[in-house]
């Protein structure tokens, strides 16, 4: 049942650090976070790691396991051979605070830059009506637990720190798409997504979708449709022709670009 697991864990802070070797007793059905908690309780009380729900619902315990962005609480030890050494390192795209804890404030800053939901007024009876089929697209994106693994893996920022100011990252393209597809929203965020959020820098390698622990199809369902809608607005010859001959582009019905002065 139980066995001794060999682990290598990155210990250190902003000034530097290195991988340290540990051996910890683990048992059947455990996840990587269990092994780390046991290390804390028995060998290294000050080992820094973020965690909350331990059920894959809060997105706190993001790190890299054998180089792959994963949630520590959803990575089962049974996925590895018992003789294998498991290496755990902090997310690479964000500055280290200590050990496995990184400074993810980049994401909270990007969240602040995004114009919020602007609904139409409620119906006369004080309620709102939306059809299930229309909310389901947005609901897929709202499954996001903000673990920021997609942000961590996205090579636009992972390998190019200087791209960060101009690039919001997959998590926020998801949010743009969610608001854009919201049946009751009145803003047109397409231009903003393209310019301010840097949607154009994404070259759809789908790395974000691969690491999403919620299985959200970030690239196919959010980023690509957003890109298409941005392009429609900019270059679609039919839209151009329509605007010339006075046909209204229904895509803009009930929506205004939040950057327009009126």
């Amino acid at each position, binding site marked *: 049942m139980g066995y001794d697991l060999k682990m290598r864990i990155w210990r250190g*802070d*902003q000034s530097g650090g290195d991988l340290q070797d540990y051996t910890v007793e683990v*048992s*059947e*059905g*455990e*996840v990587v976070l*269990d092994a780390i908690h046991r290390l*804390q*309780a028995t060998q290294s*009380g*000050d*080992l*820094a*790691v*973020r*965690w*909350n*729900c*331990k*059920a*894959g*619902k*809060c*997105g*706190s315990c993001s790190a890299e396991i054998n180089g792959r962005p994963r949630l520590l609480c*959803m990575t*089962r030890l049974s996925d590895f051979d018992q003789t294998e050494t498991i290496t755990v390192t902090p997310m690479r795209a964000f*500055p280290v*605070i*200590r*050990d496995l*804890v990184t*400074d*993810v*404030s980049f994401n*909270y800053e990007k*969240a*602040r830059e995004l114009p*919020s*939901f602007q*609904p139409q007024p*409620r119906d006369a009876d*004080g*309620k*709102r*009506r*939306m*059809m*299930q089929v229309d*909310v389901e697209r*947005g*609901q897929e994106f*709202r*499954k*996001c*637990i*903000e673990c920021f693994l997609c942000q961590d893996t996205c090579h636009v920022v992972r390998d190019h720190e200087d791209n960060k100011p101009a690039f919001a990252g997959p998590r926020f393209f998801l949010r743009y798409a969610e*608001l854009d597809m*919201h049946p009751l929203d009145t803003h047109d965020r397409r231009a903003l997504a393209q310019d301010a959020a840097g949607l154009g820098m994404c070259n759809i390698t789908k790395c974000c979708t691969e690491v999403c622990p919620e299985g959200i199809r970030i690239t196919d369902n959010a980023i690509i449709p957003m890109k298409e809608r941005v392009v429609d607005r900019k270059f679609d010859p039919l839209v151009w022709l329509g605007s010339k001959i006075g046909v209204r582009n229904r895509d803009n019905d009930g929506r205004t670009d939040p950057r327009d002065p009126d």
Partner: protein
Amino acid sequence: MARHPMTGNEMSSEAESRLERHHYDVVIVGAGGAGLRAAIAAHEAGAHTAIVCKSLLGKAHTVMAEGGIAAAMGNRWPEDNWEVHFRDTMRGGKMLNNWRMAQLHAQEAPERVQELEDWGALFDRTEDGLISQRDFGGHKYARLAHVGDRTGLEMIRTLQQRAVALGIDVFMECTITDLLKAAGTDEEGPIAGAFGYWRETGRFVVFEAPSVILATGGIGKAYKVTSNSWEYTGDGHALALRAGASLINMEFVQFHPTGMVWPPSVKGLLVTESVRGDGGILKNSEGKRFMFDYIPEFFKAETADSEEEADRWYDDKKNNRRPPELLPRDEVARAINSEIKAGRGTPHGGIYLDIASRRDADFIRKRLPSMYHQFKELADVDITAEPMEIGPTCHYVMGGVEVDPDTEATSITGLYAVGECSGGMHGSNRLGGNSLSDLLVFGSRAGAAAAAYVSGLDVLPKADEHAVQAGERRAVAAFTGSGEGGENPYTIQHDLQQAMNDLVGIIRTSSELEESLSSIEALKERAKAMAVEGHRQYNPGWHLALDLRNMLLVSECIAKAALERQESRGGHTRDDFPGPDPEWGAKNLVLRLNAAGTGVDLTHQPLPVMPDDLKSYFEE
């Protein structure tokens, strides 16, 4: 504003010299549903507002709530209204609820839910496009607004995005360890702020504020088998006690009937009540649907007594009574406990929760996606093909800070409490779905009340600087105090959790409760000699050492009140006093910090009396 060179945290200009200080009208401790809703209300009322929370924004336990938000909107059943919801809530709490809180809650929940939609929440819909509502234990009508089984995530994200849009300041990964009272006043003096530390750096921080709203959640981490995360260490309960406020109903702890039991790694992890609301049933190892054997007299008239009637109810609620699986949580948890004790448990010491044989796979995956995911990923169980093994897990504390029902003000001027850390609303047992609505209704009220209090002040109370210094000394004691030979905080926490689980669990008895109190005293002594390794920068061992102080105090409250109450009611079951007692049903147990500040004193207090017009709802 200067930023800390390493963490990027914003710092005030004084920070680089010595102690970081901030000034606000309203400081909210905790960023779950209650804290966020309070912050939004305080901000909208014009108060300069800050949220301080132990984790990153959006990670609080509200995120784990699965089933839904109870609100009598009448979208599925036009017959539903606040009176019915009020009645269900009071009966679920075995009439020990603060009637006024239960009334306000039932009246205001629908608008609070619709407000979430104004802020971008995407609830599941009815065929008419309205917010869908689902069945849950103890609720007469399908009443829970929901998003699959991840309603809490939707709620916290909506409130978080609203708070961000309003530009409310958030201090993340910052722990409040002491409340500050006004200088030169006695124990009754008003609040003047809060003292704490940044978890990232270990640096201290002072918030000067005439009002503080506690929204810190529960105490679940005092138990071994729990659905709660590391944060739930009774901080708000303990902060309030030490500031001079009182706690009520601490003997009432809710054990959720359905927590995972296997593998050990996930023992206690919540399995939503929606599984039963959507048709799931409970079976013992003999394959018997045993809940029919456990229908109490109190709920007999409204509960089905045959499997046929129970099954018909899902489609025809008018002519059939509810399945016994949907009795309030305390009843179901006790029944499961009895079946396991009688030797009819599963191989891993639980019982079976079966929806696979009752609903088709598509329905299950659609209605319960995160349960499907959770069992598949963590237990290798396909819930569309086989039953789940489940057992009771510590989930929620009904007890908390005693507050005024209309404003959530405590007995200490300027101090408010909302959500799980407040007491009264749920009486002796909370109905599923009533927690998320509680957070919204009373969060909103507390935020508005705190802002109104501050705007009426001519002179701001000045924080007692001696208390700041004492807070600093106390916080670093674990590094400097005992040195060699001091005990590891993880070991003390482990022993406390074991004691609470074994001695103050679902079924209690006088001798075990007395034993628990002496165990807690012994643990308090051991905690004095605690030692922490490493330094102050993001050090979980140190953080635990500081949280333990709260956990020990709150555990003492639970055990003491549980020993005192000689009856069984809701989330308090005494083996030696198995039935409810009307005399006990007319009073609350109140806990206050003792004169020496080392423990708690207990007094009896009559329950507020319900007005006659509301009483009429309970006459059959």
